[in-house]
């Protein structure tokens, strides 16, 4: 099953490579990984999307906790949470595609953030599956380029990951 894991980690040189190294050394999946400093610049917050059996996920959490730089780990799937990812898609916007692209963008509540000769760049946020659905609903030949940030996640309401 897919799990989204949130990590608070010391903002130290090499901290990211410790996490990435752990996943590759132990053969765990990483579907995506995002990281950036928090409001406290000595700490970073990382979101990892991974998948595995309950036993594997349990080991992942334990192994992450074992890393000396890791401050806190939370499996968002243990409760209610919100997942968001940002995607930028550059699509063909020649006469043949233009209206169609505009319409699809509206349906998915995306925004066209750059208009050029023959292309649009669409910005879309949502859960990973919503972004997948958008890509699938476009004519594949019309897609020029996509870039996704990977998911970020946060617990709902009282579920707060803080030290």
């Amino acid at each position, binding site marked *: 099953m897919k799990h989204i894991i949130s990590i608070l980690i010391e903002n130290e040189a*090499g901290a990211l*490579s410790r996490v990435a190294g752990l996943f590759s050394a132990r053969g765990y999946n990483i579907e995506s990984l995002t990281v950036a400093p928090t409001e406290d*610049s*000595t700490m970073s917050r990382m979101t990892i999307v991974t998948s595995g059996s309950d036993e594997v996920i349990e080991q992942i959490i334990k192994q992450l906790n074992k890393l000396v730089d890791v401050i806190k780990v939370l499996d968002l799937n243990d409760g209610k949470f919100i997942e968001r990812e940002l995607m930028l898609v550059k699509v063909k916007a020649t006469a043949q595609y233009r209206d169609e692209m505009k319409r699809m963008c509206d349906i998915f509540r995306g925004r066209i953030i750059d208009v050029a000769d023959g292309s649009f760049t669409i910005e879309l946020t949502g859960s990973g599956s919503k972004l997948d659905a958008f890509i699938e609903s476009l004519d594949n030949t019309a897609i020029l380029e996509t870039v996704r940030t990977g998911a970020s996640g946060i617990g709902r309401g009282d579920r707060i990951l803080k030290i």
Partner: protein
Amino acid sequence: MFRVQYYFLLIQGFMAISSKNAIVNPVSAQTHSDSLDASHKDASHKKTSHNEISGAEIVIRCLNEEKIKFVFGYPGGAVLHIYDEIYKQNGFKHILVRHEQAAVHAADAFSRATGEVGVALVTSGPGATNAITGIATAYMDSIPLVVISGQVPVPAIGLDAFQEVDMVGITRPCVKHNFLVKDVRDIAETMKKAFYIAATGRPGPVVVDIPKDITAHKTSFHYPKSVEMRSYNPVLKGHSGQIKKAIKLLLEAKRPMIYTGGGLVLGDGAPELVKLARTLGYPVTNTLMGLGGYPASDPQFVGMLGMHGTYEANMAMQNCDVLIAVGARFDDRVIGNPKHFLSQKRTIIHIDVDPSSISKRVKVDVPIVGHVQSVLAEMNEALLLETTGTAEKTKNDTKNDISAWWAQIGEWRKVHGGRYEMSDTVIKPQYVIEKLWEVTKGDAYVTSDVGQHQMWAAQYYKFDRPRRWINSGGLGTMGVGLPYAMGCQFADKNAQVACVTGEGSIQMNIQELSTCAQYGLPIKVILLNNRYLGMVRQWQEFFYENRYSESYMDSLPDFVKLAESYGHVGMQITKPSDVEGALKEAFSKKDKFVFMDFITEQSENVFPMVENGRGISEMILGDEKKSDEKKGAK
């Protein structure tokens, strides 16, 4: 699939640029504790005042603060400032090895023998890479070490400078933690953290990589008394509720079993375990790493378990109804095929300081995370209350009756019983170890290399005390034997130290004969010379129809002459009747290094044996299969 790869590339890309972006924030890259004030960040370290000392001297002062007795090392360009300070100090003794791998192994053995943190010092580049096998060996067996490596000057890092290697990167998967110190003002705090991390929780090696220019820069010295790290808080005490649950289960068991590993030895929990086991009267088995955790000569001891464990230990492990694992990790050499192991129902209690060891390979019913010593002490207290505190019952009334289980174990004991075929023409390796045990009165530090001789040493030397059996269990590193013996001899200069080795393994760090000569170490090398990479040959005999591919050891040196060339005593023993006399003679030379070359049976195999992928109760007990084949051929 494509997507996963795609993201992975993204991540790698991210890692490549991360040094400029999210992760490294130049100000916060090195966090400072409250003890160091923030303003110093802007102070230029080039301005020196009279109470400022160099980074190199700070390193030495830190080691002295930690009361380090020995530093095992090898000099080179990047650590020359540090070596200059070593020259000027007398707080610790520096031991000059002949290869950096041996420095780390010796520091590792010093720690295994004493419980103190071992320290090694190596230069950058090749010095650092030579140390890797030593570090990985210590990591796999959870040995606390601080390894200090030199690094090229900060401005040269990343430019493929002479003798540059990314030590932090290369050691990351085989250390508990590592540091690159980029500011002289961070040395003291980093060293303090390194010792703290290495020794606490589940212990392990910590690397401190120090660029050369940092060891020349000056600052004032202040060694923090303690460290606090918000991201690192090892647990100590076990959960009381879980402990009560465990006691209840143990007292209700019909076929109980106590299984202890290296964690019990490293956590100094052996005395508490002995108390617990004796109160309960239950059978005890030790892993290869756990030998000495329970006295081998005690009747409750059923021997080592696992791939080359005793029949009774493996059978009891397989057939017990309540199993308590203490500082052990159910690894593949111990429980064999996990599916087969789990085909028998049993309730498992697991005490370990590392939560990630629990339910990693085998699902556990009662996990107890905590330091073995404190958890066992609490169990002993609870047990005392349970068995004597309530009502007027005497201890014996409540003592759980498991006589049927002991009777069954007694039957299993008769099945193999450590038998081997004696010979009066050729020396049997098992016989050498039995005699070694007798001659040293079971009280030597026994180090071993890796191979058949290691298993025979584990099977036939009866360890009654923890920290006496020193070997590489997790990584299985050939070449550890001699440097391990050095570490033990430095730990206890009057002790008898025996290095049980093979002619393959000893040649992997043979250069250390020179170090032993320099420091006058009276080690006794017990070489079980079978002219084969014996353990490899055994597998080839069993699983590759006797195709002995590259396992014959040709062109061996004359070990006697080799030893003598270093000023040591060399002996070659070829007859079984000479074994005991030779051992006595060697150990009577209290101040001499003696190299004993025992020419042993070439085709001897280690039994019992559990083949890879089999269950632990499916053992091969001897050469029956082989002798049947021989009979058939006649």
